[in-house]
């Protein structure tokens, strides 16, 4: 350690020494833990219903026998034409968690080996694309998605945020200042917010002509495309992540309009452009969120128990997790009916296991990066494919989990 580093260490210690605990944090932590546990116990109650035959799914326990993928689940309440039963938009339904569905306790022992993932997935520093290509992900680039012959991802900015990283087929990295990019459903176009120019900017795969930049007022953060002609962005005064509203912009630059005033910030949009999920309320005890039909003022339903990150390709389901996660990863993953919020299935990592990235592989299957233990030297990890009735198989080899090393990952959904 040289003199400069020694000075840094001393000054960090000096700065930290001013901080002291004025009260014990144990009691507050226990109360917070109790709230988390209560939610988990509510989820556990569903298992009883499933085991007694009231609900549909199979319950899979650790060390269970191999499972084959069954026919697609039909748990959501379909109407006669097979479409989900919409809720009236005039009165949002507040959903209690786990009103139906079942729980799968994840495990790796005895799972049958299935085909590799059919969506983009990550193995170490390699991005495997759905069309069978392998692209090396440069160090420092996170959340890669295939884009053209290369990839697009995020990289740390020099100002503490995140910038957009484009990597071409030869591995050349180009960094665009601006918030994390959104990619179109067909993977052919990306957009990002350039904070210096105050513009939404676009790029097309293969260098094809992209739409002209759109000048915006305030800071915006792209969330996702609605079809091919418009996109959803969060809007804030200076920081899109402190957004106070959500707007839809026409890609052509032909104008913009506000989405529901109840939507404080959007997080995911369905590929068909019909549904948006996002934040609706800030409470001392946490945040609540809801699903909106894109042109509706009122949410279809809201929840304060889960957070979601992806709609299924057909927009019928939402994939998410408990509102709390811990240092290792998530303990549960849930699939709910996107239009009603009713639980379709719950996947639970038995202690000391955890769930990493999750993604829909199709309309009725999910992939989960599951690790059996966060304890160094004890864990194994694999990408697991599960149907919505809870039966699972491995989609990759089972490998030792290496703390500090990304063994498997899944690309963020467009």
């Amino acid at each position, binding site marked *: 350690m040289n003199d*400069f*580093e020694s*000075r*840094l*260490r001393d*000054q*960090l210690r000096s*700065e*930290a*020494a001013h*901080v002291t*605990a004025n009260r*014990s*944090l*144990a009691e507050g*932590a*226990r109360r*917070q*833990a109790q709230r*988390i*546990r209560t939610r988990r116990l509510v989820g556990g109650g569903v*298992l009883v219903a499933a085991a007694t035959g009231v609900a549909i799914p199979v319950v899979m*326990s*650790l060390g269970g026998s191999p499972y084959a993928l069954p026919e697609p689940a039909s748990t959501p309440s379909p109407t006669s034409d097979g479409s989900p039963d919409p809720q009236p938009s005039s009165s949002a339904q507040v959903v209690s968690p786990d009103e139906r569905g079942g*729980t799968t*306790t994840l495990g790796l022992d005895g799972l049958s080996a299935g085909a590799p993932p059919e969506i983009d997935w990550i193995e170490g520093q390699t991005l495997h694309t759905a069309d069978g290509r392998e692209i090396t992900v440069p*160090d*420092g680039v996170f959340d890669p998605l295939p884009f053209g012959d290369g990839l697009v991802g995020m990289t*740390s*900015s*020099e100002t*503490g*945020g*995140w910038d957009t990283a484009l990597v071409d087929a030869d591995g050349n990295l180009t960094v665009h200042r601006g918030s994390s990019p959104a990619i179109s459903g067909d993977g052919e176009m990306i957009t990002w917010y350039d904070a210096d120019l105050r513009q939404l900017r676009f790029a097309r795969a293969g260098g094809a002509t992209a739409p002209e930049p759109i000048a915006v007022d305030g800071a915006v953060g792209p969330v996702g495309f609605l079809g091919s002609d418009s996109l959803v962005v*969060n809007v804030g005064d200076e920081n*899109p*992540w*402190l*957004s106070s509203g959500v707007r839809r912009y026409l890609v052509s630059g032909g104008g913009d309009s506000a989405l529901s005033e109840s939507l404080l*910030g959007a*997080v995911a949009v369905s590929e068909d452009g019909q549904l948006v999920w996002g*934040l609706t309320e*800030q409470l001392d005890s*946490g*945040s609540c*969120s809801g699903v909106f039909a894109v042109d509706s003022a009122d949410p279809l339903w809201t929840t304060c128990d889960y*957070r979601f990150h992806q709609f299924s390709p057909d927009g019928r389901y939402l994939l998410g997790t408990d509102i*709390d*996660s*811990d*240092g*290792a990863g998530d303990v549960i993953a849930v699939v709910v009916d996107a239009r009603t919020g009713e639980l379709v299935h719950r996947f639970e990592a*038995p*202690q*000391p296991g955890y769930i990493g990235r999750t993604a829909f592989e199709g309309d009725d299957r999910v992939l989960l990066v599951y690790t059996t233990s*966060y304890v160094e030297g004890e864990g194994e990890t694999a990408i697991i494919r599960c149907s919505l009735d809870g039966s699972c198989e491995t989609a990759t080899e089972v490998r030792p989990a290496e*703390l*500090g*090393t*990304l063994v498997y990952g899944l690309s963020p959904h467009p």
Partner: protein
Amino acid sequence: MEDLTVAAKPRSDRDAEFEEYVSANQTRHLRTAYLLSGDRHLAEDLVQDAYAKLYLAWNRVHSRESLDAYVRRILVNEHTSWHRRAWRRRETVVDDVPERPNPANPQQEFDLRDGLWPLVRQLPARQRAAVILRYYEDLTERETAEILKCSIGTVKSQTSRAIATLRAAYQEVSER
């Protein structure tokens, strides 16, 4: 639900052990959280979040060494995720009004009498975490990599980049 985990300790034993651990470590964890976040109130939220999750996981964390690693990982990951998660960030940052200098001009409010801390606060989140774990917590590169969930090479590069940034900024102000 069938409990597939180790047998839980009686609540009273667990509570007593938990309180003992919190009492012995909360100041240290608060200081780490403060260096990560740059804000005392946010640091307290971070530590309480971490302890809540630790309490739930108490029976599956095997040793005191594991406890510390577990808490550090939660602190760092939760803090980093606040930068990346839109709604969580909104939830927490509204009350977080650190006196943060303009990132576009890192030296503008820097005063030599303040030492390096104002510059550390302007480092990107992961670089700052790497610096704090390496130079404040005195963790090895491997231990730091485990907590940051990255390779040792990334720890080296993040730390080197951070030190170079701090050194350059400090020298520039010194030479004025």
